[in-house]
């Protein structure tokens, strides 16, 4: 693998870039790059490590996620795909093109190894996170295609049906999953496109989703962003500097009983359409009551500032709770969930319009947990039953994935211990 770093390309062929600058377009591109803070677009995250990147990594601005269905029943093909994906992911996250020859250096009569749309872009903080669906171990018909049924982690399976789910099966589930996050949308799209290309003949894309405007914060240094309801969301998230919280609630531990998953995590995916038109016709009073927080600051309605611990016992006029008991915060808060927390990594999405003149928009929820059945399912059940927000959302998709620990180093691959 003699991949050339895209950044090296940029600096190495500076003469070429300067000559392009004369036509103007290149000049604008170069100017933009020099103005950008290097940390925003030039940062890189190592693909290899004890944990996969893209979970506690500070959230990048763009998401492209995809699920794949395997079209093969060959265990060897599956392993080869995971190896190829891991190698490609290592190259792309380092800012390098994929393949032996990259995008423009190969045999002239062959299609380029790399699709090339990320050629001039830096690594852009790209992370690629690979997951395995319950159907990989056993299909819904009970078929064990790859001899993996006995390796299914205890407590891991498809998410149950929740009240009010209006799911589109075509965008639910999947045998394999990839989450690409980057500061540049094109870099994230390049990653998923490359994965799909590697998979032809072995797996086919089942669904994919673009997301923008991170709607969670996984770093205590970042401010809390807003979702498309206009509210700060996920204020109380687990952040990367909370080592105890990560061990308790995110990373699978040795005592959890599934050795090949130790250091990994589990992911719940829910596409949540917001009926934003009816939301926008709702009074500020009702909007704040739905969240249990103020819109401007994100303060709990019991008082204080955004990060003040909510006081669910505080009452106002007529003894009514200041934070409504059916507000989103009251139901999602750890105090209502036996102290359980999850790591939220949600993105906003807009898929154009719905054909009725309304925006097809909402939240693409990605939640990581050490044990979905204890941390996520009871909370989602509580929300689906009673959340005051339900009037303004529709749950369109549902999926669960096991996220194995990171690949150890070059030559290793995600999921390696599963096949050992």
């Amino acid at each position, binding site marked *: 693998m003699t991949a050339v770093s895209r950044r090296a390309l940029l600096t190495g062929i500076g003469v070429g870039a300067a000559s392009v600058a004369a036509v103007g377009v290149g000049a604008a591109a170069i100017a933009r790059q020099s103005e950008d803070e290097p940390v925003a677009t030039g940062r890189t995250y190592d693909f290899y490590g004890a944990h996969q990147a893209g979970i506690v990594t500070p959230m990048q601005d763009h998401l492209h996620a995809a699920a794949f269905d395997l079209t093969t029943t060959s265990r060897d093909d599956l392993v080869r795909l995971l190896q190829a994906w891991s190698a490609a992911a290592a190259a792309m996250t380092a800012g390098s093109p994929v393949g032996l020859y990259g995008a423009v250096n190969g045999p002239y009569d062959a299609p380029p190894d790399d699709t090339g749309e990320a050629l001039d872009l830096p690594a852009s903080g790209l992370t690629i996170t690979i997951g395995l669906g319950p159907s990989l171990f056993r299909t819904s018909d009970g078929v064990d295609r790859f001899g993996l049924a006995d390796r299914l982690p205890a407590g891991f399976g498809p998410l*149950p*049906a*929740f*009240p*009010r*789910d*209006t799911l589109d099966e075509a965008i639910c589930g999947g045998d394999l999953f990839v989450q690409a996050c980057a500061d540049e949308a094109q870099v994230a799209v390049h990653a998923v496109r490359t994965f799909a290309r590697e998979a032809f003949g072995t797996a086919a894309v089942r669904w994919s989703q673009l997301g923008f405007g991170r709607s969670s914060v996984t770093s205590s240094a970042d401010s809390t962003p807003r979702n498309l309801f206009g509210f700060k969301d996920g204020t109380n998230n687990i952040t990367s500097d909370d080592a105890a919280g990560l061990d308790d609630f995110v990373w699978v531990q040795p005592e959890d009983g599934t050795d090949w998953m130790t250091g990994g995590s589990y992911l719940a995916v829910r596409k949540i359409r917001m*009926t934003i*038109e*009816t939301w*926008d*016709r*709702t*009074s*500020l*009073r*009702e909007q704040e*009551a739905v969240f249990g927080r*103020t*819109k*401007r*600051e994100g*303060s*709990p*309605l*019991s*008082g*204080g*500032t955004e990060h*003040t611990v909510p006081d669910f016992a*505080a*009452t*106002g*006029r007529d003894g*009514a709770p*200041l934070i409504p008991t059916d507000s989103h915060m009251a139901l999602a808060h750890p105090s209502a969930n036996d102290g359980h927390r999850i790591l939220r990594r949600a993105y906003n999405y807009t898929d154009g319009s719905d*054909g*009725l*003149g*309304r925006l097809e928009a909402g939240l693409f929820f990605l939640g990581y947990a050490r044990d979905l059945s204890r941390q996520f399912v009871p909370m989602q*059940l509580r929300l*689906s*039953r009673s959340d*005051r927000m339900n*009037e303004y959302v529709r749950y369109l998709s549902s999926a669960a994935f096991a996220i194995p620990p990171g690949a150890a180093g070059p030559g290793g691959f995600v999921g390696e211990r599963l096949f050992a």
Partner: protein
Amino acid sequence: MRQRLLPSPVLALAAAAGAVLLAGCTSTASTATSGSADAAGTPAAITVDSTDDACTVSTAEAPSGVLHFAVTNSGSDVTEFYVLGADGLQVVGEVENIGPGISRDLVVQAAPGTYTLACKPGMTGDGIRSTFTVNDSGADLTPTGPTGELIATAVANYKAYVDDQVGQLLAGTKEFAAAYIAGDDAKAKALYAPVRMHWERIEPVAESFGDLDPILDAREADLEEGQDWTGWHRIEKDLWPPASGYTALTPAERKTVADKLVADTQTLADRTADLTFRVDQLGNGAKELLDEVATGKITGEEETWSHTDLWDFQANLEGAKVMYAGLAPVVQRVDPELATTLDTRFAAVQALLDKLRDGDGFVYYDALSADQIKELAAAVDALSEPLSTLTATALQAAGGGSAVASPASS
């Protein structure tokens, strides 16, 4: 579009519980935008700092017209802020339940005169009071006074309407249940949509009973695993069963689910008999009924099996129109332009629905073309947007008072 949706200063003011829409307040309709609250012409906020033992107001006087108070609770207890009449009793405007550290805005319209401002940390006693003078700026003000009577009439009339609809719903449900139990499917299917219209006309009222709504009106998708499915839509599926993979209810099962439907409807009737309504519930209820149309009926989700969504649509529209009609004299007084807009757009939606009538009823949802659905959706959106300002306009006309203090219905 925003200018047209906020056709007058009064309406914009009323809509602006926060600062964001205030740009529309004093701008003319042609220049109003939903832009920055700092736009020229926005009334400067009068800051109010409420602590445990002080109520500091940034000024003791202001020109008449729109007054914008930015209230911050710097104390340690929950507080309230009031604008009271000169007598110190009549409530012109108020914000309640302001938690420590939280800021909330109050927008009122004030005629020249002397007022009393009061912070009420701890929500008890007379509060910490000061005198506030409003000087004559020459601004036109909304007439007040007799609107109180109009509102009382609207609320009383609505209560009578709900009682009547619930009565008809109960009678119709009994007839429907009897036909269904007797195995007279043709009669049951003919009664299904018309009887349900009584429910749909008062849906926000029925839904306000959180325990009754799911057992009477849950759709299959609303259920959680292992939950019993009862109510209208359970019977709907049995009367219009899917082509395959469905096991019909036995006569005994039919009787169980139909008897329960009647019993639960009786409970609904008993409970609504004791209900009273507030002006904000009328305004919000009208909006919520149109929301029901927009999210459930336009999409054909409500009546998955019978496809009688347009009956529900018609009933939601009628229910909303009754709520609006009660408040219309009030709206006419404070914002005639809004009244005209709403009248026109109610009529436009009805005209579209009328084109889809078939005999005593309507065409079925699955017979609608994509273009027809889109046309309906656009007309509903065009009505819903101005309708969403009805509550604030009505409350504005009511001059604050106890209605403001009550939490919005949900």
